[in-house]
């Protein structure tokens, strides 16, 4: 019908504009928090912190003091030191695992979306099998066999992320592969490798990166869950999940021991979600058309 008459629900048009402006402050706050957590985690060794594994049975569950800013846990260990060293674990796993996903999943997705045919069927089919397992169950089962260690944990969570990254990369590649600049490159006789790396990769990368940030959030949560259950990184290394798990035991006496790492984890996950979601909205081709 008429383009003018009815169908302009002005909200639809105005919303994205308003949203980016309003999200501005929150977006930068999230970036600030992520940078802060990174900085503290990287410089944990240099900072004047207590030893996160040094127990002191006389100083158990002490309230915050000058000596222990956030108090001590059930084994008399410095809560702040454990929190900051826990950030290292969360960030290492949270960044490395999606890195595996984005590399393998992204490559498979681009190849599948570009070459199509039997290769695509094979890739999509095998990913479907991986997706047929509830992710946490698969992670638990594989951890049980492989044994608990930081590299194992990262590897498992990374492999679990491959199907999702594959889907994003494939969908984006599919929509791009028929666009003029790709067809033009093909007509000029460019090799497949050149088209994939020079023409497609730069365009696939942004949506994948936005998804990567969301993947970081999910990985931190899953790592937290595994550590919470006692199946993440082995003790005495501290991780936010295991700290919350240990804090649960003393919920009646010192709820702070569970809530401090809980709030830290929530803020970090929320920040990654926020930044990832904003970037995704910006790179979403459907929104870009408006």
């Amino acid at each position: 019908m008429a383009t003018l008459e009815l169908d302009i629900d002005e909200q639809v048009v105005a919303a994205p504009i308003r949203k980016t402006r309003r999200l501005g402050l929150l977006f930068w706050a999230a970036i600030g928090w992520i940078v802060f957590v990174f900085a503290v985690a990287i410089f944990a060794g240099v900072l004047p912190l207590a030893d996160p594994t040094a127990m002191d049975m006389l100083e158990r569950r002490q309230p915050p003091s000058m000596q222990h800013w956030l108090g001590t846990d059930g084994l008399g260990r410095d809560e702040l030191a454990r929190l900051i060293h826990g950030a290292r674990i969360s960030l290492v796993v949270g960044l490395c695992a999606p890195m595996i996903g984005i590399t393998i999943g992204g490559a498979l997705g681009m190849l599948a979306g570009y070459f199509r045919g039997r290769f695509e069927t094979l890739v999509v089919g095998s990913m479907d099998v991986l997706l047929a397992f509830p992710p946490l169950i698969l992670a638990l089962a594989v951890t049980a066999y492989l044994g608990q260690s930081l590299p194992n944990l990262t590897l498992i969570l990374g492999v679990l992320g491959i199907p999702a990254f594959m889907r994003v990369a494939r969908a984006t590649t599919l929509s791009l592969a028929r666009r003029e600049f790709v067809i033009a490159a093909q007509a000029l006789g460019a090799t497949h490798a050149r088209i994939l790396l020079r023409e497609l990769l730069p365009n696939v990368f942004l949506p994948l990166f936005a998804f990567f940030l969301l993947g970081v959030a999910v990985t931190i949560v899953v790592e937290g869950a595994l550590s919470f259950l006692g199946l993440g990184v082995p003790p005495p290394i501290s991780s936010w999940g295991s700290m919350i798990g240990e804090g649960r035991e003393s919920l009646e006496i010192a709820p702070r021991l569970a809530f401090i790492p809980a709030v830290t984890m929530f803020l970090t996950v929320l920040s990654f979600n926020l930044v990832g979601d904003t970037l995704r909205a910006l790179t979403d081709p459907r929104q870009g058309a408006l």
Partner: protein
Amino acid sequence: MPGFVAQRLLYLVPVLLAVSLLTFLIASLLPGDLAYVILGDQATPDKVAALRHDMGLDQPIWWRYLSWLGNVLQGDFGRSFRTGQTVLQAVMERLPVSLELMLLAQLGALAIGIPLAIACAVRSGSAFDRFMTGSAFSMLSVPAFLSAILLIYLFAVELRWLPATGYVPFSEDPVGNLRCFLLPALTLALGEWPVLMRVLRSDMIATLQEDYIAMARAKGLKPSRILLVHALKPSSLTLVTVTGINIGRLIGGTVIVESIFALPGIGRLLLGAIFTRDLIILQGVVLFVACGYVLMNFVVDMLYAVLDPRIRHGHA
């Protein structure tokens, strides 16, 4: 419709086979020899070799897979070498608990998510809508074990209204049973509703702009009928899909929640098997859960067809 069902059923066969193969491979290829686990670290190599021979572990892998698959198809998932219970017994004993938990959680999530989504869609862009959308987004960053701790702290430690842990069978004390499930189900529902709400909200906003909604208003129908019948029914299609996609998350959440609230469900069985290195139970439970997951997704697909007449009549 029958064609649609048959086609989906046919697709299930290779997926289930692949799932069984992957489960078997995880158990067989990854380190952790069953014979060592059973006999302990001090076992002599002779004894280990003998046990491996008895269990058929020295057979070629494809042969082991086929015989295992054959047993599974006959309902024999193996027997725990620790408790002597068969996998099937153990699973069946605990299944009702997990199912009840998931069902209550899903109902809770729908009960929170649907009304909020409708309210937000009707007043999209309002302060209420923005607040609820923001809350839903924040809730997405709260993992189940965080909300569990928060709920336990609030309702069990501070207010002392509900038990933090424990389980009473429904047949013995229905009210006590529901009280036990209230916090665990709420924990899972808190993680689920934002997903449902966000999807339904954006779908409802799009639906409310459709011509047939203007038509329904022009017909002078009551607002409640327009929202709940004319708008909600076509909008609920993606809701069903999302529910399906979320079952995986829900199963994962069930494991965590059962562990936190000490509910004797499948999740606790799985975790117990991991901690006691009861590999037969572990393998059986993983296979069972994965197959259950595949079947649940199949049911969701069918539900989709029931809701959308266009798919039912093969027009999609």
